[in-house]
C-alpha cells in the first residue's frame, strides 16, 4: 500500500503546483488497510485509489482535482483518533471517508462533529447514526437490519436455540447489542453468548462450549479472519448445526479461507457480491456491474461489499460537490437531502433523521456454494 500512498502524495504535489485556477479538494480517508480488518480496509483503499484516478483523469469535480490522503489505522481506534485530528485540524480536509470499522468510527464521531467535517463512515453499527450527528453519515447497511434478516431466516428453519459468538471490536460489540435486543422479539433464545479476542487464531475451545450447550445453530458476529476459523473449528469438533454469519462475512476471501467448512454458511449482504447473478432489470444492476468489472479487471481479486462502501461514499460526495461546488455547509445539506442515489449497497435516501439512507431491502440472504456466494434458496 505504501507505493499507493507515495503515488497519491506525488499526484497531490503535482496537482497542488499546477491547479491554481481550480484548487484541489482535499479528501481524507481513514481506513484499516492493514491489520485484522484488512479484508475491509484494503479493498476500500484500492477502490478509492481507482475512483480518484478516474475522476481526476476526466478533469476532476467541476474542475477541481481530488487530492486523496489515505491514512492506514491498522484497525486501531487510537490511530484513527490521531489521524482524524491531523486531517481535520492540520490538513483541513474537505471531508473524511471512513473509518472502516465501527469502533474506530465511534472513536472519531465527536471529532468530526466538533470540527464540522463531513464524515462518511464505511462501518456497520447502528450507533454511528443513532443518535444522529449532523456531520456524520454512514453508507454500510445497519447491523440491526442484518440481525433482523438472520432471525427471520432462523424462524423459517425452525431454529429457536442458538449459540452466539462475537469479537471484542466495535463491530462485534454493536452487533451483540442488536442481537441481544432483537432475539427475544423473534422468540430466539441465546443459550450461550461468548466474546473472543479480535486476534484469535483458534476457537476450538469456544466451539467446544457451544457443542456442550446443544445449540440448534451458531451465529457469529465479527469482521476478522476469526470468522473463518470459527466455522472450521466447529466442523472439526463435529458440530454440524447451521452456521449464520453477520454481513461482516461478505468478502469471498473469508469463504475461501474456510474452504470446505464454509459451504452452507448463511449471511446477509448487499447485492454487490452477487452482481453477476442479478436480474438485468434490477435497479442496481448497472452500477454494481460497472464497479465490479472495473475493480476485478484492475486488481485481479474478487469484489467485496467493503470496497463497494468506499464506492458509495466517494460517489455520494462527488455528486454532492457537483451540485453545489466545494462549499462544506452546502455539501453537507445536499448529502442529508439526497434521495434515490443508486449505490452498490442499495438505493440511498437520506434525511435529517436518517443518516444511513438504506432500508432492510438493501440486504439479501446469501449462502456459500462451491466456494462462491449465491443468493439463498437457489
Amino acid at each position, binding site marked *: *500500500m*505504501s507505493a499507493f500512498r507515495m503515488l497519491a502524495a506525488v499526484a497531490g504535489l503535482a496537482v497542488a503546483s499546477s491547479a491554481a485556477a481550480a484548487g484541489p479538494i482535499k479528501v481524507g480517508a481513514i481506513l484499516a*488497510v*492493514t*491489520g485484522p480488518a*484488512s*479484508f475491509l480496509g*484494503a479493498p476500500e483503499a484500492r477502490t478509492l485509489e481507482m475512483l480518484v484516478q478516474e475522476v481526476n483523469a476526466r478533469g476532476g469535480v467541476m474542475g477541481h482535482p481530488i487530492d486523496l490522503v489515505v491514512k492506514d489505522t491498522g484497525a486501531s481506534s487510537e490511530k484513527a483518533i490521531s489521524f482524524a485530528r491531523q486531517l481535520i485540524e492540520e490538513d483541513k480536509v474537505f471531508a473524511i471517508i471512513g473509518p472502516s470499522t465501527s469502533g474506530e468510527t465511534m472513536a472519531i464521531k465527536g471529532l468530526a462533529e466538533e470540527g464540522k467535517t463531513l464524515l462518511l463512515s464505511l462501518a456497520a453499527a447502528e450507533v454511528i447514526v443513532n443518535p444522529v450527528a449532523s456531520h456524520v453519515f454512514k453508507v454500510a447497511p445497519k447491523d440491526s437490519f442484518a440481525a433482523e434478516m438472520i432471525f427471520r431466516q432462523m424462524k423459517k428453519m425452525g431454529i429457536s436455540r442458538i449459540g452466539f459468538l462475537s469479537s*471484542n471490536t466495535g463491530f462485534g460489540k454493536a452487533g451483540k447489542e442488536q442481537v441481544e435486543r432483537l432475539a427475544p422479539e423473534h422468540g430466539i433464545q441465546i443459550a450461550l453468548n*461468548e*466474546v*473472543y*479476542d479480535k*486476534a*484469535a*487464531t*483458534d*476457537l*476450538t*475451545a*469456544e466451539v*467446544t*462450549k457451544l*457443542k*456442550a450447550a446443544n445449540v440448534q445453530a451458531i451465529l457469529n458476529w465479527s469482521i476478522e*479472519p476469526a470468522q*473463518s*476459523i470459527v466455522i*472450521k473449528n466447529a*466442523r*472439526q*469438533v*463435529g458440530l454440524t448445526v447451521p452456521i449464520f454469519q453477520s454481513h461482516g462475512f461478505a468478502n469471498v*476471501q473469508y469463504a475461501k*479461507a*474456510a*474452504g*470446505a*467448512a*464454509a459451504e452452507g454458511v448463511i449471511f446477509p449482504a448487499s447485492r454487490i457480491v452477487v452482481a453477476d447473478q442479478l436480474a438485468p432489470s434490477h435497479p442496481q444492476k448497472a452500477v454494481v456491474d460497472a464497479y465490479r468489472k472495473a475493480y476485478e479487471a484492475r486488481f485481479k481479486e474478487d469484489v467485496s461489499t467493503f470496497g463497494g462502501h468506499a464506492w458509495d461514499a466517494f460517489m455520494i460526495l462527488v455528486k454532492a460537490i457537483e451540485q453545489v461546488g466545494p462549499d462544506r455547509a452546502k455539501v453537507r445539506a445536499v448529502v442529508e437531502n439526497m434521495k434515490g442515489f443508486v449505490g452498490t449497497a442499495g438505493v440511498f435516501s437520506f434525511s435529517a433523521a436518517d443518516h444511513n439512507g438504506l432500508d432492510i431491502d438493501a440486504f439479501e440472504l446469501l449462502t456459500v456454494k462451491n466456494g462462491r456466494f449465491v443468493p439463498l434458496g437457489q
Partner: protein
Amino acid sequence: MSLDLLLQYLVAGLTYGSIYAVVGIGFNIIYNATGIINFAQGEFVMLGGMLAVSFQRVVPLPLAIAGAVAATAGVGALVEVTFIRWLWKPSVLRMIVITIGVSILLREGALLLWGESVRSLPYFTGDEVSSIAVGGVRFSPQVLWVLGTTGLIVAFLSVFFGHTMLGWEMRACASNRDAAALCGIPTRNLVTLSFVLSAAIGALAGCVVSPITYTSYAVGAGLAIKGFTVAILGGLGNSMGAVAAGLVLGVLESLSVWVLPTAYKDTVSLTILLAILFMRPSGLFGSREASRLKEF
C-alpha cells in the same frame, strides 16, 4: 463439565502449547549461544508460513515446506551475519534494540512483499471439515501433524545437543564462550548456526500450524510474546523446560475459556509472564543459582 469436554479442551490446549513450545525453544537456542533474546523469533515463524504458501503455488507441498524452512534458515544466517556477527561484546540493551529492529524490518518487508491479506497452506491430510474421533473427542488431523512435528523437533534437538560433536561444541560455546574459543571451537560460526537452527525450527512450526491458524505478515509479534513467556516460564536456556512450559501455557489458556470470557485468553499468558518475572525470574524449571550467573 464432562470428561469428553475436558479432553477436548486439552487437545486444543496441547496443539497450541506445542507451537508456543517450539517458539520458546527457538528463543533458547539463540539465548544459549549468545546470551540475547532474539525478539525476531516470531517473524521466523511468520516467514516459514508465508514462504511455504508462495512456494506451494509452483511445487508440491513437501517441497514447498522444505524450501520455506531452508529459505528462512538463510534469512536467520543473514540476520546474524549482517547485524550481530561484527559486534564485539555488545551490551544486552543494544542486542535487544537490534533484534526488535530486525523483527520490524522482517514484518514490514513481508507486508510489502505479500500485502496484508491472510493466507494458509492446505491441510496436510484431509480438508477443513475432516476430523478424527477418539472416544468423544474430535479434532482435525492437522492437530496430529502439529503434535508430531513438535515431538520430532524436540527429539532431533536432544539428539543433536546430546550426541553430536557439533551439538557439544554449541553447548560449550553456550556455557563459556571464551573457554570454548580457547579450545579451538569456532564460536562465531556456532552463533550463526544457532540463528540458522532456530530460524529453521520456527519456520517448520509456522508451516504445520498455518492451516489451523492462518498466517499473515503480522502474526510474529503475538507468537513472540507467547514464546517468550514460555521460555521464561521454563527457565531461560532450558529447552526441555520450554516444552513443558509451552504445553502448560497452552492448556491453561484453553481451560481458561471454561471459566473466563474468551476474550481474556491472552490475559492469562501475560499474567503468568508478569507473575513469573516478579516471583521466580529463573522460571519453574530453572535453578536460581544458575540464573544469578547470567547477565540477563
